[in-house]
């Protein structure tokens, strides 16, 4: 929780352990699969929406380019 507070307040970021990273990524994968069951739109439309979000995230990450 202290680490999360440090990140939210932009104080510092400590790279989590492999175990934590793996847990978070596995959770993201489960949520992704779970969303398929909840989604009511067609695969074409929902994947397009997700790809647009991913595109914006990739663009924003360009802020860290040299």
């Amino acid at each position: 929780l202290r680490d999360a507070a440090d990140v939210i307040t932009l104080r510092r970021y400590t790279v989590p352990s492999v175990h934590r990273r793996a847990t978070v990524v596995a959770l993201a994968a489960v949520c992704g699969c779970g969303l398929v069951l909840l989604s009511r739109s067609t695969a074409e439309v929902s994947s397009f929406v997700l790809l647009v979000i991913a595109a914006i995230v990739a663009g924003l990450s360009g802020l860290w380019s040299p």
Partner: protein
Amino acid sequence: MVGTMLPIGYGERLQGRARRSLEAYAIGSVVGAGSLGLLVSELGGLIPVEGQDRLELALGVTGIVAVLYGLSDASLVRVPRPQAGWQVPTRWYRRFRPELTGLLYGVGLGVGLATRIQVSTFYLLPLWCLLTGNVAWSVFTLSMFGVGRFLPLLIIGTERGGDVQALESLIGKLEEFKPLVTFGNGIILTFVGAYLFATVWT
């Protein structure tokens, strides 16, 4: 790019001119990224698969690639990251007018493929455009990448563009959070990848 584009805009303001370079950068980013979407989706039109099979191919392959790169961005596995590594030349801002410099930087970085690829999420976009071959959706999706590239610069430029000390402090702070951005992209990639892959089986 913050450290290059914002001082150009600041210089324009010092000379009493409107900061056209940032607007030109925004236009260049969207046009460059959209052009890549157009090119790749047109190439995708050559793939001889149509209809539902094509959609499943796009979902399956993009899903697997997204999960792999997600694990890579989370530093859990190593996946090759092909990239050109070219950098937009710094001499452009001495040679050209600020507006043209902004436009050229925008196009160069908006295309994305020629320069260093910061996060793996980018790989997903041209791959998806190629496999779906849908021109309109591809141009729109990659244009959103361009929007994502210029939006923070416009916001920071408006808020702190004239305060050099604040800008330097911000750049330093941003650098500290680079690993978080990569990890965050890893989480998003895995989420999107799992979703895309799972849709094939439902």
